[in-house]
């Protein structure tokens, strides 16, 4: 087994064992099927609902809201995060706001947003955005602060001033922390979005789980949960794929001629 296959097997070992245990124990009737349906039945239900039911629309709407909320949160969050990490005045101005609103569960704002924006897309997108936005501000600010001062001094001494300070020094320097912050920001957007849909929306993964729950359609509830989980997994996978492309210097020795350390 090559090392990468071996590592892949390690990463998937526990999930695969758990899923196998679920499948066999439910089939054997060890667990109450009213609460724990057979795993393969859940998957069949999910596929059936995607193809024939409303689930396809639910999924597309959730994805669409997620993308809008995240894009907005990323652009504004990074801009404000960089500004407040870099300039003391900005930091002092926004600190009271971030300190107050960051810990506030954004789902609590949903009723307000529904009053303001109506029961359209706006309220759900804004609620999800608000979660990721503050998360991204805070992680970006932290990354900017963590740039070693001698690196900043070196950048300035070697002529990275004006806009070059940002393009050639600051953004490359914070890139690892920034990517990680965006990943977490997108995941928290998803959390709040599904919750917001659960509470108020007509369509969307959260709404679908609520509907199914009200009808005691346990397999559909699980299908919704599985899909939400898969979305979260895809977010992480996407960032894991992008990271080595954006941060090639973090890759081990491959790029170097000769390869070995001297």
């Amino acid at each position, binding site marked *: 087994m090559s090392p990468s296959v071996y590592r892949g097997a390690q990463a998937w070992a526990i999930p695969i064992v758990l899923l196998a245990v679920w499948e066999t124990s439910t089939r054997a009737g060890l667990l109450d099927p009213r609460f724990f349906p057979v795993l393969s039945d859940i998957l069949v239900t999910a596929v059936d609902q995607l193809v024939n039911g409303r689930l396809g629309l639910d999924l597309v709407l959730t994805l669409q809201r997620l993308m809008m909320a995240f894009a907005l949160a990323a652009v504004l969050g990074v801009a404000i995060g960089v500004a407040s990490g870099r300039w003391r005045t900005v930091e002092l101005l926004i600190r009271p706001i971030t300190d107050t609103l960051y810990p506030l569960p954004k789902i609590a704002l949903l009723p307000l947003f529904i009053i303001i924006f109506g029961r359209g897309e706006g309220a759900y997108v804004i609620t999800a955005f608000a979660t990721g936005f503050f998360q991204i501000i805070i992680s970006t600010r932290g990354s900017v602060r963590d740039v070693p001062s001698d690196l900043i001094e070196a950048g300035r001494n070697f*002529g990275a001033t004006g806009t070059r300070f940002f393009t050639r020094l600051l953004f490359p320097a914070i890139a690892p922390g920034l990517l990680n912050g965006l990943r977490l920001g997108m995941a928290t957007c998803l959390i709040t979005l599904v919750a917001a849909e659960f509470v108020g929306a007509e369509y969307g993964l959260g709404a679908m789980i609520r509907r199914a729950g009200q009808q005691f359609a346990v397999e559909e509830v699980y299908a919704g949960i599985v899909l939400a989980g898969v979305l979260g997994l895809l977010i992480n996978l996407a960032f894991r794929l992008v990271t080595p492309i954006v941060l090639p210097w973090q890759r081990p*020795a491959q790029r170097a001629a000769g390869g070995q*350390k001297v």
Partner: protein
Amino acid sequence: MSVQAKAKVRLNDVAKKFPGQENVTALEGVSLEVAESEFVSIVGPSGCGKSTLLRLVAGLYEPSSGTVEIESSKPDRPKTAMVFQEHALFPWLSVRENVMFGPRNRNMPKKEAAEIADEQLARLGLARFGDFFPHQLSGGMKQRVGIARALAQDAEVLLMDEPLGALDAQTRTLLQEQILELRQQTKPTVLYITHAIDEAVFLSDRIVLMSARPGRIRDIVQLDFGPDRSPELRGTSEFAALSQDIWNHLRDEVQLAMAVDDR
């Protein structure tokens, strides 16, 4: 002081205070001239403001009072290029790109900048390592890349902030000899900060001794070994006597600084 060469760096009654809770006065009444192609070391106890002094010359800090002037020989020539104690290489750039960083920021075409970078890397024995990333190099090699990056700037003044402070003794000795060689080849104007008295004696034309906080110039020692010294200088009795003499000067200040720290 060398009268024949004109002053390249001129510090005039410079003071630097850092406002804040402690209101630290890092430097006070510092006046110093460094002549063209002169190698001046600054030695003093920890916290005597050596690094602050270097950053004032680099323009990274503004003096609280007094002036810092650097004579320009060409309008577009960078005034200073700095070598940092902890190398401060850009981890996202290859070794070559690190060295090209300064020239590229002056809008030099990529090809030309790469040629300059390769030339400087070769000078420091790093010709093979242009495509490596900094994290793939040893401490001594990173420090040499830092030196190559500064040399590629061809700045008016080379500022070196304890460049060998983080290295093991043998690497340090080797790099001292490499810096001496650079000195002889390119005759740069250098302000060099170090803790190591023997290093200062080995490399410098003059050694500036600083007092504990607030940093003042306590004494300046002129050395007459000339630029064409050899590594064997270290073994001479003259070298040992001078190092001892400077340590005698400095001992009180270091003790004072320690007493301040212990308070």
